[in-house]
């Protein structure tokens, strides 16, 4: 058996073997084998993940952290083991730094509304650093997904703080210098995506963290498009919070993660309150548990957490460096192929600059919706629309783009079929006439 270096792209044989783990990919769509190029929106799940959730539900399922019966103990163990698995995957200092949420949107809202509550005086002196008011600034980028924009708009509106944003260049990218120009002593939070869901740009995280921390600002990282696709080490990056979703990384819907540094999580006032997050409750008031439980009110998505841990084990089995190398290889193949098709404008970093394995593009004279419909007729699934990034599209002068995104099960053949179909689109819609 050949030993493959940990940073080498997957071989076609390896990808084919991986693909066989995904039952949904073994079907025809509209009479053609499915080429699923929409993993950036939601990833498909391997049999191992589906089996893990089913096995848990068939043997261990019960409410966690309550009850003393055997299944309650088994469930609680599985649930906490899952937390430890995810914590290890992202380089957290401890499992208690991992808070289960419904998804990344929920995780980002947890931080924003926790800060809103702190700004109203909740959390006492410990929550001082989360307080915002008039004169304070929240900094985002013009390229954000609405999930990492709208909660900050709301936080600004609730507290009187000012929302500012790092503008993007004509290709949708921004630099650490752009950030440096806007990070001041007034900046209290800097929130941005690690990898853009539209441009595929990889943010200069460590540089921005340096700038933000020098001014005492907190850094919130939207890791939705990085955690599934490349090695992620939250401590090495130095961020304060990071959010991602299970369903984008071979796991279930309904489970997401907020990671935060322990001392921050323990001081941030809770967003949702209720059962399981309290120590003492009287009719006059309540005391809250430390993190992560203080943020996990109510019945939790236990089987989803268990399945997400299995997804993490599956990804680790491949190796995240190899996942990254595979997707970057496919992205280059897509970029080279699209460059040869007249009338295609790819958004994102120029050729030669590292980017993730997704490519959004505009076809001159053909609306993105029509592009994806044409591809769908050949069994090729791509996303079309504004990808929850309206301000970015407005800045790019586009209403919508088409986006092809890759994952561990994407083959070169999938990419080649995609490229061949895209090359036909303008003719079909008469855009070349």
């Amino acid at each position, binding site marked *: 058996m050949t030993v493959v270096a940990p940073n080498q792209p997957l071989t076609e044989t390896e990808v084919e073997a991986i693909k066989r783990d995904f039952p949904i990919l073994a079907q025809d769509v509209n009479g053609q084998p499915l080429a699923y190029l929409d993993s950036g929106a939601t990833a498909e799940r391997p049999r191992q993940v589906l089996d893990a959730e089913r096995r848990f539900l068939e043997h261990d399922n019960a409410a966690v952290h309550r009850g003393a019966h055997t299944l309650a103990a088994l469930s609680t163990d599985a649930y906490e083991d899952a937390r430890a698995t995810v914590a290890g995957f992202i380089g957290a200092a401890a499992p208690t730094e991992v808070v289960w949420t419904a998804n990344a949107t929920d995780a980002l809202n947890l931080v924003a509304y926790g800060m809103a509550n702190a700004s109203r005086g909740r959390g006492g002196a410990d929550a001082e650093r989360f307080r915002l008011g008039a004169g304070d600034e929240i900094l985002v980028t013009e390229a954000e997904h609405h999930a990492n924009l709208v909660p900050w708009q709301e936080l600004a509106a609730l507290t009187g703080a000012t929302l500012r944003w790092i503008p993007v260049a004509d290709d949708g990218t921004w630099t650490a210098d752009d950030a440096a120009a806007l990070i001041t002593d007034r900046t209290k939070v800097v929130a941005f995506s690690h990898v853009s869901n539209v441009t595929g740009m990889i943010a200069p995280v460590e540089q921005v963290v340096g700038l933000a921390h020098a001014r005492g600002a907190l850094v919130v990282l939207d890791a939705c498009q990085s955690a599934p696709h490349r090695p992620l080490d939250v401590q090495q990056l130095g961020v304060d919070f990071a959010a991602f979703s299970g369903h984008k990384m071979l796991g279930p819907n309904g489970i997401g993660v907020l990671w935060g540094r322990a001392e921050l999580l323990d001081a941030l006032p809770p967003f949702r309150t209720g059962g399981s997050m309290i120590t003492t409750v009287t009719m006059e008031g309540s005391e809250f548990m430390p993190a992560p439980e203080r943020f996990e009110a109510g019945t939790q998505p236990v089987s989803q957490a268990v399945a997400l841990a299995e997804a993490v084990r599956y990804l680790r089995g491949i190796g995240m460096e190899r996942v990254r190398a595979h997707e970057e290889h496919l992205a280059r193949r897509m970029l080279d192929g699209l460059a040869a098709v007249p009338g295609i404008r790819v958004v994102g970093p120029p050729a030669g600059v590292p980017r993730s394995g997704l490519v959004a593009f505009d076809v001159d004279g*053909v609306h993105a919706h029509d592009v994806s419909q044409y591809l769908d007729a050949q069994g090729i699934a791509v996303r079309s629309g504004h990808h929850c990034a309206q301000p970015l599209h407005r800045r790019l002068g586009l209403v*919508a783009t088409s986006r092809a995104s890759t994952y561990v099960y994407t083959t070169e053949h999938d990419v080649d079929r995609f490229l061949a179909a895209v090359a036909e689109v303008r003719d079909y819609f008469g855009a070349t006439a």
Partner: protein
Amino acid sequence: MNALDSLYQQVILDHAKARHGDGVMPDADASHFERNPTCGDEITVSLRLEPGTDRIAGLAWQGDGCSISMASASVLTDMAVGRTVPEFLALTEEFRTMMRSRGVGEPDEDVLEDLVAFHGVSKFVMRVKCGMLAWVAAEAAAREATASR
């Protein structure tokens, strides 16, 4: 005819390029804006009535969207002008019924004229809204124009 060609009938592709009615109407009696938030398509439809009557004398629209929504706006312009508001609203209802048919039945070409080309769209649930966008905006503008008279 394959599924894609039944969606993108030649009438639709032609209208998507011709875009009858694409423009502004400074003397409109009413205008209405509609957006499809899922895909970002948007359109503003303006119309004008013959003085003293409820007959649609002119219609113009400005919008950005896929070929289905742009073609539908173009056909709307051809078919709305010259009809009374009640006639137009009845036609819109006929069109809506066809668009909700999921491809079942045979549309009445005498009533729907060029709109029968959109029968194939009704099989693509995700695209029905694209086909209806301009008509929904025109429906609201027509009601407003008669109400404000």
